[in-house]
């Protein structure tokens, strides 16, 4: 541990906190229909888009119509991406001449990118063409992020609306999120990335003789354009197999700093958007504070654990921190901060090998995901997941003091609490069920690469990541390798892992979306009772602490037995396997 390592964490937190009200205020104006500085330029494009789509921008939807639009749109997106993956051999921009991606991998990949997970059972540079990257994968980086933001904004309206029972229009929220937020930000950040060395080219790979006389081939591609939205949309699916560790994706410590900020920018900003839209910025800051406290605690444990080194390293007598799977330009500080940011947000991009983290260090990303990705979380999905925990905390507090629970002046009734429980427990159940199925059956075994408890950790991590739509991996878990598959040299997951993973990702995305939209639909239009002396305040540090306790309680009770079998065993033992 060094002073500069800790200073980096502090500066990061300060900058993130400063940006939160700026981007949050912009999104609040955008999604309440106010004019923003881009309106003169983008306004005509927006109206033209509605005409092409045949959408009436004034027509509001109730929660059922909103949810139906989300699901139909995602289903069509899934079908189109699956088709592109299967047909890439006959499509343009394919300089390496890749053939069709196998059906099971295509199923997993399409599920993965449509659900904002971006789990990758394929290696980008050896499996998919430039067309697939641009017109398939990158498009869904935009769309899945915009869907998450739209659902989040609709849910906020459910809390904020006092007279009408509708949640807004999905199509308007989708178009606004894309045109005013994600696309302009992506263009800016992508141009910055190119100046720093992220490649943006359509040339085929380049082979040359190295200084020492060997041969090396570079794979170029439209990387920067995808990289910016990969990070801003908390997608995380890399152009290259080693993701943001590849210098062509993340060449310098500066681009790395921008990536770390980009990951948390929109999820953090949405807390401020929430505060403004419900009419009390303190409510937004309270949620932000709870998120930040949990994030910082995780970073501190992770950084200290990596600085302490791994059991294997101690046995070999190597001093200093654990640098296995970490590039020099990032070092311990920027590698661990990135690992924490990418797993509190459901991003899943990595700049270091997660599987090579120390045992305790590797438990932090897992724990971050096991909270249900609500510590900032994915764009949109983080805040709407967090709002379910807020209702749960309010409910628990209500039970303790014997009052009807209420939040922002709205009484919380049995229906909302039932839906909240369904929304918060669906994903953990899915994760544990999938992990158990994979561990207990012969079909799950071929996916495991490491011996001993690390093999269990790989499996637990894989389904935790997919169920919570994160997408990072203990990447030994790739299924078996097909080195000489036609047109490809990547590693492909076996069919069982592909299908089970798809189920986990799709369930993990849409079950909470339906539950949270139903909650919002039932709260929208509910009468607001003025706060009395007995009303529990939800904009205080006490409530932030209660919120954290609620999240930890749910996560711990659900996952401790599983964590004991993997990371905890490994942390407590110096035995090597």
């Amino acid at each position, binding site marked *: 541990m060094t002073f500069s390592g800790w200073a980096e964490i502090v500066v990061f937190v300060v900058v993130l906190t400063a940006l939160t009200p700026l981007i949050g205020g912009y999104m609040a104006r955008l999604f309440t229909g106010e004019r923003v500085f881009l309106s003169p330029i983008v306004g005509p494009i927006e109206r033209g888009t509605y005409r092409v789509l045949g959408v009436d921008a004034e027509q509001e939807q109730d929660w059922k119509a909103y949810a139906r639009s989300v699901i139909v749109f995602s289903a069509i997106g899934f079908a189109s991406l699956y088709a592109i993956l299967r047909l890439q051999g006959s499509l343009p921009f394919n300089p390496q001449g890749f053939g069709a991606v196998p059906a099971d991998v295509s199923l997993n990949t399409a599920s993965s990118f449509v659900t904002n997970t971006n789990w990758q059972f394929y290696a980008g540079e050896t499996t998919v063409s430039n067309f697939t990257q641009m017109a398939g994968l990158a498009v869904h980086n935009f769309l899945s992020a915009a869907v998450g933001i739209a659902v989040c904004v609709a849910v906020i309206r459910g809390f904020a609306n006092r007279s009408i029972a509708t949640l807004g229009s999905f199509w308007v929220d989708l178009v606004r999120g894309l045109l005013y937020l994600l696309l302009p930000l992506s263009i800016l950040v992508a141009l910055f990335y190119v100046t720093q060395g992220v490649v943006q080219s359509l040339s085929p790979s380049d082979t040359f003789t190295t200084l020492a006389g060997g041969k090396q081939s570079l794979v170029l591609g439209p990387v920067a354009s995808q990289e910016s939205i990969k990070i801003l949309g908390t997608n995380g699916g890399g152009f290259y197999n080693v993701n943001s560790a590849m210098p062509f994706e993340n060449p310098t410590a500066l681009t790395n700093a921008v990536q770390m900020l980009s990951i948390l920018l929109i999820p953090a900003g949405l807390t401020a958007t929430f505060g403004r839209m419900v009419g009390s910025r303190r409510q937004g800051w309270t949620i932000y504070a709870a998120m930040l406290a949990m994030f910082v605690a995780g970073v501190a444990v992770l950084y200290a654990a990596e600085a302490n080194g791994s059991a294997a390293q101690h046995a070999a007598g190597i001093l200093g921190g654990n640098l296995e799977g970490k590039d020099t330009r990032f070092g311990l500080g920027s590698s661990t901060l990135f690992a924490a940011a990418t797993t509190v947000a459901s991003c899943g991009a990595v700049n270091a090998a997660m599987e090579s983290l120390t045992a305790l260090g590797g438990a932090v990303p897992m724990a971050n995901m096991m909270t249900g990705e609500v510590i900032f979380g994915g764009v949109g999905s983080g805040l709407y997941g967090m709002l379910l925990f807020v209702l749960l905390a309010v409910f628990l507090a209500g039970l303790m003091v014997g009052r009807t629970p209420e939040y922002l002046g709205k009484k919380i009734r049995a229906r909302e609490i039932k839906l909240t429980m369904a929304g918060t427990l669906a994903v953990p159940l899915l994760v544990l069920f999938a992990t158990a199925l994979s561990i207990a059956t012969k079909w799950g075994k071929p996916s495991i690469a490491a011996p001993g408890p690390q093999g269990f950790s790989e499996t637990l991590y894989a389904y935790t990541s997919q169920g919570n739509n994160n997408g990072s991996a203990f990447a030994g878990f790739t299924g078996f390798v097909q080195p000489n598959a036609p047109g490809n040299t990547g590693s492909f997951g076996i069919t069982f892992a592909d299908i089970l993973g798809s189920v986990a990702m799709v369930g993990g995305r849409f079950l909470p979306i339906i539950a949270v939209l139903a909650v919002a639909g039932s709260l929208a239009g509910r009468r607001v009772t003025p706060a009395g002396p007995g009303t529990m305040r939800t904009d205080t540090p006490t409530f932030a602490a209660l919120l954290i306790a609620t999240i930890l309680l749910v996560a711990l009770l659900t996952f401790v037995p599983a964590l004991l079998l993997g990371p905890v065993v490994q942390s407590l033992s110096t035995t*090597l396997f």
Partner: protein
Amino acid sequence: MRTELRISLIAIVLCTLVLGLAYPLGLTGISQAVISGPANGSLVHHNGHVVGSELIGQDFKNLPRYFQSRPSQTDYSANATAFSNAGPNSADLRDRLEASAAAYLKRERPFDLTLTKTQVPGDAVFTTASGVDPQISVADADIQAHRVAAVRHLSLARVDALVHEHTDGRALGIFGDPAVNVLTLNIALDQEATR
């Protein structure tokens, strides 16, 4: 349901055209016109030939006149990257680290007689994330400078100065770690010899 299907179909086609083709192709056009060097892989030339990318590490094994890159799990493959995925409790990792440290000492100690195992820099024995890490730590470069200076009959001070020239500091003074670019440093050494 039919309305949603119709809107979704048009939206996917429209988004594929705008976000999937116009945006990346437009950005490629701008990048190629204005910032083509970095957009095409930050290539490095030596004696009129492309010899690599400033951002992609290369193998200099068994060539004592060059600074050595960090160990790579993929033999510095830049077209099929992969992590080592060696876990924290892996016996294989322990064996590999022991072998790497021994090899490092064998290579460097003849030129830096006070070097001990506890001084072997971590980055010189651990494999990297990308497999093509272009850089090494300053501590590692300082040790290797002894060997390179001796083999090339250069003064240690001159080699140290070149190392310093090819060191990138922390971004904004805060983010990341200082690191030395191996390829550009080795090219500078070759140019030094022909000067």
